[in-house]
């Protein structure tokens, strides 16, 4: 009876093992997380602006956005963006003659759009709270100096807002890396998808899902350490009691 080869040999890099698949998956997970987070950042700023602008209609729009996105399960939102958004875009583009009939939204684009949409809603409220935490007098002072709105935002609001928002933003970054696993459902080749395909090919479910989970845990731990540094850096110059 020949000795059972170690399970870790399945993680070899190359055609035999699944090491390269996992590495591709890891990179894809990081890519969609970063791109989704950038989109969420922009959407969050726009949402916070809409909610704080003072215009009632704009507030309604921002409020509806955050309420609906938070009430719908993330998995369903990803499916909605992939299938519904994909089909709507196809119909639109084919309709105006921009694309052929075989035009399709890639899982990457759908994943980024969905993650950005979801976390944009969470970041909206984080940014809103952070902007409200800035003393009113400072904004008034900037106005008294004759700064126009973009300059006020760039010089007074944004730098201070980021300081207040960093803890919440860090939490949402941790969440977005974890929720990026959900896009394996729409066939995006990320970490969990790599684990899934490796597990179903070899029937070593426990091993491959554990490895996948450990990869995610690694991302989380590295992010947590990095976030601690960022938090310390953004709050430098703040007097502590």
């Amino acid at each position: 009876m020949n000795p059972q080869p170690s399970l870790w040999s399945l993680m070899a890099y190359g055609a035999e093992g699944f090491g390269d698949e996992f590495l591709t998956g890891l990179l894809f997970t990081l890519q969609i997380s970063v791109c989704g987070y950038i989109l969420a950042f922009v959407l969050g700023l726009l949402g916070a602006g809409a909610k704080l602008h003072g215009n009632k209609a704009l507030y309604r729009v921002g409020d509806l956005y955050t309420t609906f996105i938070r009430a719908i399960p993330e998995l369903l939102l990803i499916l909605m963006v992939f299938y519904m958004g994909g089909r709507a875009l196809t119909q639109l583009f084919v309709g105006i003659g921009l694309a052929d009939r075989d035009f399709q939204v890639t899982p990457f684009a759908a994943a980024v759009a969905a993650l950005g949409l979801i976390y944009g809603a969470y970041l909206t409220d984080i940014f809103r709270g952070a902007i409200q935490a800035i003393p009113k007098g400072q904004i008034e002072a900037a106005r008294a100096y004759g700064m126009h709105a973009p300059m006020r935002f760039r010089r007074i609001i944004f730098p201070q807002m980021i300081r207040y928002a960093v803890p919440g933003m860090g939490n949402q970054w941790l969440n977005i890396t974890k929720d990026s696993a959900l896009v394996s459902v729409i066939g995006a080749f990320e970490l969990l998808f790599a684990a899934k395909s490796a597990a179903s090919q070899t029937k070593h479910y426990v091993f491959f899902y554990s490895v996948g989970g450990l990869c995610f845990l690694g991302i989380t731990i590295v992010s947590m350490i990095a976030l601690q540094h960022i938090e310390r850096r953004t709050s430098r110059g703040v007097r502590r009691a």
Partner: protein
Amino acid sequence: MTIEQCYAFLNTEPGPGFNLCYTLVTVFPALIKAIPISLLLLVTSGIIGNLLAVPVALARVSRNPLLWMPSYSFILLMRGTPLLVQIYLIYYGLGEVFGQMTLFGQPLMKALPFLRDGIYYAIFALSLNTAGYTGEILRGAILAVPHGEIEAGRAFGMSRWMIFRRITLPRAIRICLPAMSTETILLLKATALASTITVYEVLGTAQFLRSQSYRIYETLLSAGIVYIVLVFILTRILNWLERYLNKDRERPLAIPMAQTVKP
């Protein structure tokens, strides 16, 4: 249109448009029938998870490394990995383990056919996940209980267990109530993940209908509406519960606050 006409229309015209009839006659009743499964997942894993969270939090605040270290790693594992990975690991992983086991000379899966049902694995995974998240919340709340109250309990000659039962736990639960209601809403949304391991709750049913009819707007939008309504109702219930549990310390009407608001 009668139902027969509706179905005739459905079967003959698989067009890309929105079919209201199909939505109202087929999708919504099916989704409403699936709501109890979602709620079953929510209630059972909520109860089991919150009960498990108490020992997890207690072990976490202990000074004994044999207690806090396992608890810390459990919380880190639950919070540091995606829930979907946990669900897959439990469903497929336990399936792999159970598949090799035998009971009374029979394969285990054959002897206990309920082990094939995904819902038990979903409840198991959701409970563990909730225990991890709530354990961390409860830990913060236990640490936030004012020290003087525990000392007062000690001065009354209460035993440690009695102090915990009468002072620490009720106080801690009250402190973490707002965080717990957020957690419950998140758990309701997390039950949708059970659809990936063939549990036909609301999203699972919607996915089944979608794969059957190739109608995406009707099925996915309806599921979204169902979840929005569920979350809305649950938020109301939790708000009421929070107010009910805090009845004795209800603030007088917010008149002093109103004066600080700019006209």
